């Protein structure tokens, strides 16, 4: 009877299309919005992902990577004094103002790397060499910066110079980095030069990057370093999740996206539930006839669930497919943010199936109440 159930569904084109469209819309909305939300959350952790260090040491009051409270230079030495530290280097992170050739301004994320080791160097150099950072006024700019300037009609290439806080900077390489939350271009230079570019303060060190000795985990070392008064250390993964949790807790982003996702769910339930209920009501007479002819409730239940789940499967498939196309398109442009971990489609599929269950159950309620004798009325 399952084939009969599918034929009854597929050949009722108007309702079938409406059910599929409803669930597609619901699936698209939930998958796309959740993926954009995940993308935004990923943007907030761009610095952690761009700089390859196992342990990050900040001021004790720092709660996430984009919030920097300057430290004293001596903290590098204090971190190095902790047993289990293989090495520790300073890092400067700050948002500075760059002035372009045409006089316009652009905020940049200035990153000062340890002059001797370049720990935290860009992971992908598209043009030029990292070692050229040792040249006077040298900086490396990322592709986002190149694109931003290009849109303003300024071509950035190796040898191009501009100003950071009125001090001359010259591009020696172009890199590709993960985009930051505020979409500001990353500009890398040496730690010492970063301090020259930055506006002077009493304390200038943003954080210390450390490497644990062999046999010591990053978490363990972070715990040890955190015993130093005034310092808080994070293992890289912990910093990543702490940052995401901070944004979830302290910004309206999850509420905004959550509202859209819940709306998608409600629309799905309303359209799919109502249409499926109407579909069952329209077929009630025939279902009663089937009951009279000997179809038992388990058969009818299987028929209704199959109809409901097949609509859900198709709707989810199209919705997830459209989201993937959207993702492929925006990943090339790198905006808006988009990240679809496998958990997103799995969770959305689960929600769609719940909607289908709900729709099937309200239809089955009618069928269960149905006396086969009504076919004679």
């Amino acid at each position: 009877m399952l084939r009969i159930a599918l034929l009854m569904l597929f050949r009722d084109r108007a309702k079938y299309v409406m059910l599929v469209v409803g669930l597609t819309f619901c699936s698209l909305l939930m998958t796309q919005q959740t993926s954009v939300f995940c993308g935004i959350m990923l943007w907030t952790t761009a610095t952690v992902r761009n700089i390859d260090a196992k342990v990050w040491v900040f001021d004790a009051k720092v709660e996430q990577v984009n919030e920097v409270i300057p430290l004293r230079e001596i903290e590098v030495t204090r971190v190095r004094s902790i047993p289990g530290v293989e090495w520790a280097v300073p890092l400067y992170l700050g948002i500075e103002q760059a002035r372009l050739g045409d006089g316009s301004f652009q905020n940049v994320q200035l990153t000062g790397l340890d002059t001797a080791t370049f720990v935290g160097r860009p992971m992908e150099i598209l043009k030029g060499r990292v070692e050229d950072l040792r040249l006077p006024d040298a900086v490396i700019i990322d592709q986002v910066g190149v694109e931003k300037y290009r849109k303003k009609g300024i071509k950035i290439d190796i040898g191009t110079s501009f100003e950071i806080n009125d001090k001359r900077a010259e591009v020696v390489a172009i890199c590709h980095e993960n985009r930051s939350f505020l979409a500001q271009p990353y500009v890398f230079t040496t730690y010492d030069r970063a301090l020259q570019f930055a506006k002077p303060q009493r304390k200038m060190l943003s954080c210390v990057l450390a490497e644990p000795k062999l046999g010591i985990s990053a978490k363990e070392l972070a715990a040890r370093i955190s015993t130093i008064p005034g310092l808080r250390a994070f293992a890289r993964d912990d910093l990543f999740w702490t940052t995401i949790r901070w944004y979830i807790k302290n910004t309206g982003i999850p509420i905004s996206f959550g509202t859209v996702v819940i709306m998608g769910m409600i629309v799905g339930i309303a359209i799919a539930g109502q249409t499926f209920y109407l579909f069952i009501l329209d077929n009630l007479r025939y279902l009663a006839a089937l009951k009279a002819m000997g179809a038992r409730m388990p058969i009818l239940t299987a028929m209704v669930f199959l109809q409901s789940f097949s609509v859900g499967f198709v709707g989810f498939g199209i919705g997830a497919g459209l989201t993937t196309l959207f993702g492929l398109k925006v990943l090339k442009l790198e905006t808006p943010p988009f990240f679809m971990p496998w958990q997103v489609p799995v969770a959305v599929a689960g929600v769609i199936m719940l909607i289908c269950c709900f729709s099937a159950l309200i239809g089955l309620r009618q069928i269960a109440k149905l006396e086969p004798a009504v076919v004679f009325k």
Partner: protein
Amino acid sequence: MSSEKNSALHSVAVRVDKVTKTFPNGDTPTYALREASFEALAGQLTMIVGPSGCGKTTLLSVICGTMQTDSGRIEVFGQDIGCMSDAEVTAFRSRNVGFIFQQFNLIPTLTLVENASVPLILQGWPYRKAEEKAASVLENLGLGKRLRSFPKQLSGGQQQRVAIARALVHDPRLIICDEPTASLDAKTGHHALELLKQSACRQDRCVIVVTHDSRIFSFADWIAEMEDGRVVKSCPAAEYRHA
């Protein structure tokens, strides 16, 4: 011709003995059947007739087990329907009863052959075999060229023929017809009954038709008249018409 003589020729297919059925209606229940008793013989077309509201359809419903009785006993081919569980009655109906409904109740999204094969599929036949059997029955009923049509593409008479095919396809021993001519004009109704009698009536099969259409009484072998929930008269059709 007496009923005794008839019983000798034909075995009793359906025996309804003092069956009562009430429906709740406030404090006082409404009696649909009041100790109704009735017999239908195999090899005959039995009509249950009477005015609207006399209990014809209720009697039909209890005979085929789609409705439970308050009291009394119903035997169909020697099996006591009242003693069966819901699942047993459903299985019994699936194997032994063919239905022809007043509104035909053909599923509009299924083709004729798919509609006619439903009783076989319910019995677990493979789709292809079920459709082959349904196609051969439809061909016998003159619908061989319309197997892949949908019910709405057919006239009322043709739809009735599909309903007859669906009722016969699984070779049931009891055929139940509820007002089979109600949705048809006189000529088409007459033709449908002719076809039903030709194709359904067999020595080991009982056909029960509920109707208030006196124009088709001539097709009956036996007529049971109902009034106010009781079978008030049960006799051979010729005798009934003569009376």
